[in-house]
């Protein structure tokens, strides 16, 4: 009698054990916050968000074992273009006691940093974090902020300018379309120096993430022969608008994202931003598993790709030199 009971007990325990441990893991709900600058909340929502970045993030999280509704609570927020709202959003999230906050732009990261020095913050698309004081060093961020950068420094702007100059050798006036909310004075400086070296006069056009009318008006007034679109989140969200504007004004434009070129932009030199979100999810996973953000080094991108849209080039009446073509990693017809 005793033996039978014992066997049943051990067998039952053996079967139930993994379930028990899983339940333990399931039991804990991880709260992750994702803040977008301009995305529409509707585009962020759901298991398959329309927004590709969000989708990539959510899917990656799922691949890593985080299922919404069981062990993951994903707080999706969007400032919807109003950068002032960052502080408020972050404060809300801090009160909700989220485990991780995933930010996009540096402005957002700054706001998050103001709100909390303890909750880990993952910059999915950061820029120059050391210079901005967001981290102590790339190898050891030292605080609660870590994540990825979009570029290895301001020099990328110079590179973009040089590339655009190669595409449009006759370019002499270049407009840099920036976001007001994202102060990039140093970048502008680098751009200006590069422009000088290349013999290109640099103009700055500032837009708000929601309103480009002033910027466009400025550009139309100034009539440059080249457009450099900054790599801010606002420009990314409004790429359709910008591409259409550039096309309308027959402006050769250099973008930061492939999506721009896919949307009709002339050329882009940058990294796969969607991939950054995949890697951001990886960071979130590490942090949720207990990694200290102070010890997680900031990753810089490695693969920069030049994407060129031949159709747009043709429509602009540009012939791309062999150098450019040699350099181009992807050519869209």
């Amino acid at each position, binding site marked *: 009698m005793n033996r039978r009971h014992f066997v049943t007990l051990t067998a039952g325990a053996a079967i139930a054990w993994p379930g028990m441990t899983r339940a333990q893991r399931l039991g804990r709900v991880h709260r992750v916050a994702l803040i977008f600058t301009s995305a529409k909340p509707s585009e962020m929502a759901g298991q398959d968000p329309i927004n590709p970045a969000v989708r990539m993030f959510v899917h990656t999280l799922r691949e890593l074992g985080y299922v919404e509704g069981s062990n993951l609570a994903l707080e999706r927020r969007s400032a919807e273009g109003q950068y002032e709202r960052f502080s408020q959003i972050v404060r809300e999230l801090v009160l909700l006691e989220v485990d991780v906050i995933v930010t996009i732009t540096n402005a957002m990261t700054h706001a998050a940093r103001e709100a909390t020095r303890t909750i880990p913050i993952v910059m999915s698309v950061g820029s120059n974090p050391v210079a901005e004081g967001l981290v102590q*060093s790339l190898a050891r961020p030292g605080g609660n902020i870590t994540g990825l950068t979009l570029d290895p420094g301001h020099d990328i702007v*110079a590179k973009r300018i040089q590339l655009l100059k190669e595409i449009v050798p006759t370019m002499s006036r270049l407009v840099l379309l920036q976001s007001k909310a994202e102060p990039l004075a140093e970048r502008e400086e680098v751009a200006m120096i590069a422009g000088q070296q290349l013999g290109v006069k640099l103009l700055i056009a500032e837009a708000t993430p929601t309103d480009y009318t002033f910027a466009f008006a400025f550009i139309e007034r100034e009539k440059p022969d080249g457009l450099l679109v900054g790599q801010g989140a606002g420009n990314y969200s409004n790429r359709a608008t910008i591409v259409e504007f550039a096309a309308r004004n027959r402006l050769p434009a250099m973008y930061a994202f492939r999506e721009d070129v896919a949307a009709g932009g002339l050329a882009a030199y940058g990294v796969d931003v969607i991939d950054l979100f995949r890697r951001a999810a990886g960071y979130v996973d590490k942090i949720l598993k207990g990694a200290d953000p102070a010890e997680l080094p900031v990753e810089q991108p490695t693969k*920069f790709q030049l994407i060129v849209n031949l159709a747009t080039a043709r429509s602009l009446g540009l012939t791309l030199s062999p150098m450019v073509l040699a350099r181009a990693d992807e050519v869209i017809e």
Partner: protein
Amino acid sequence: MTGLRARFETTLSASAANAGRILLSMQLKRKSLVALLARLQGSTAGFGRALLQRMGKTQALQPARSLFRKYAALLVALVGSSLIISAAIEMYYSYWQNREALSAVQREKALGAAAVIEQFVKEIENQVGWAAGFLPAGGGIDQRRYDFLRLLRQAQAVTEVSYLDPDGREQIKVSRLTMDTAASGTDLSQDPKFTQARANKHYLSQVYFRKESEPYLTLATAGAGRSAGVTVAEVNLKFIWDVISRIQVGKAGAAYVVDDRGLLIAHPDIGVVLRKTDLSHVPHVALAISKLRDPVVKVPAISHDRTGREVLTAYAPIATLGWLVFVDLPLTEALQPVYAALERSALVLAAALLFAALVGVWLARRLVVPIRALATGAARIGGGDLDHRIDIRSGDEVQRLADSFNDMGGRLKESYATLEHKVADRTRELSEALSQLRALIDVSQAINSTFELQALLEAILAHACRLADAAGGAIYTFEEGSEEFNLAATYGMSQELIAAVRKAHRRLHDDGPLSQCVLKRTAVEISDLAESTHEIRDALLKADIRALLAVPLLREETIVGVLMVRRARPGRFGSSMIDLMQSFASQSALAIQNARLFQEIEDKSRQLEMASQHKSQFLANMSHELRTPLNAILGYNELMQDGLYGELPPKTKEVLGRMEKNGRHLLGLINDVLDLSKIEAGQLVLSLDNYSMRDIVQTVVSATESLAAAKRLPLKVEISDGMPNGRGDERRLTQVLLNLVGNAIKFTDEGAIRIAAVAANGIFAVQVADTGPGIPESERGRIFEEFHQVDSSNTKKKGGTGLGLAIAKRIIELHRGRIWVESEVGRGSTFRFEVPVRAEQRGAV
């Protein structure tokens, strides 16, 4: 006369009782022996059983299952231990082998990874070389730029590539991240990437970290010819991550690359690399690095990684780069298969042990069952069940043992049966002897309890006949003088037979068994009357008597009679029976003799008594006759002295006085003689009454005062105070004391007389001490005899009858007291007597 008889009877019975007691004790001793044998007979088996049961009990105390457990344990231990040993050895070897195999596999992986990485770098080098070599020296810048752009396209890892002219000046730089430069003119002629490339054709820098985070490698190739410049490429080693991350090292293992300083170059977790991790402290890394310089160094296969986990590690050096590729596998994971194998072995071992246990138990049971059967069977046989047979048919030594037990049981049974028989026989003999003894004792007692000869002889005869298993018997007395046999007692004889025997008038020399018996002084038997020529044969036969035994009654060589027992069946009586009859015969002889003797005594006593009676009578008469005239004489004398018959001259008075004295003396003598005869006849009776010892002493003192004064002897009296009242014959006691004091005065010439009386412990102790001549020792006892006086010239002169002390002694003794003398010749004597304060009449002495 009756007293004498009584005395005789009592002494005889006392001695007989003693004899009887001795015989009885003997009988008891024999009885206990018989009882013991009876007990033995009654329960031979029981005794043995009890003994064996005790033995069996000690066995039962031990656990009856110990053998089974021993066997079972032994078997299980044997099998179990061999299983365990073999399993242990196997597991040990399997562990080692697995580890070795794993290490080998890992080393292969490391080598593979090293090769791949080397290839990766070499590939880039080649590509750079192509970009460098394609161009003839001094070719157009544009061409070079084009080539560089293509290089960038092809080699994703290259972030920058630049060309230095033969003087070491940078001519062109194409970058992914920064602006291309052309003809910057930067002088790098001293830079090792230029100098070494020029010298060795190739240059590979140490890994450096851009922004302290990204690992880079500078690669420089010199073009062919002296006029060729140097192409320098900056390689982003993050691209090695692609290679390294593809290397699968178990589930939790990792392959990583370190340079010769221990800096981590590539790791599946890029973050670790970007942290510019220094692994030079990791033991196996450090050892591997030192082994690059010193091949003797041994790098352990098991070590701890940077997180402190125990890992199984293998490595492969990339000689060209000076890098090391490590493949670490967590030891637990590595040994997983080993542990799985161990688990398997353990399970198998457990199952095998279980099986061994079961088999062991079963075997033990099989071994133990026959042994247990043996044990229980032996216990049963030992317990007394001698019919029990142990049934074992195993065909081995155990069965043989069982058979011997059964044998033993059978033999025990036989010997018990024999023993029982023997004991029964002995007991029967003993009880016979006992009953015989008893009969003898009864007879002895009977003999000694009565002097009725007739009854006695009949009792003896009855016992004898009973023991002799005789129908009847007779005792004849034999008169030596008349040579006649008289029928003294009969038993079991019909009147007819008695008449016949009486009529036969047996005499000596009449050839009958009686005569023969007497003449031969031994037992005579006739085993079959039919064949004998007995005188009264017919009469006996008619009385169903076929055999008879005649035994002489001997008493100190005198035949006093014959004991005869008669049986109804023919046959010899047996020597033991004859002996028994002879003892009865001697008892009978004793009885007869006793009776005769006693008869004599009785007669003599009667005569004596009659004589004594005559004597007393005579004395009483005579004394009266004697005293009467004497009293007259004395009376008249007194009267004459008083002058009743006229005044007498003094001389006459003197003479009369002397006559009175003599007369009184004679009277005293007569009184004494009378007293003594009375005492001797036992007729002196004390008249008991209360008296005062003090008074007695006073009386005596006053009676003897004058006598003592006459001899000028002081008479000291010491009577203690508080003397109790005595009970006794006052007159007689006074007489005694008077006699003693008189004697003291009489025999003492000078000194003093002392009379003392004390009472203690219910006894009056009186003493009369004088300072006379003393009494020698030889006389001290005899002075109390009649008519005895100490024979010396001194005393003879004093006179006296010599009866006084004798009478005093009798009187004291009648009071149940005692009287004696202490004396020292020349000093004096002290006569003492003690009487109980309350005396009772003593029986006739």
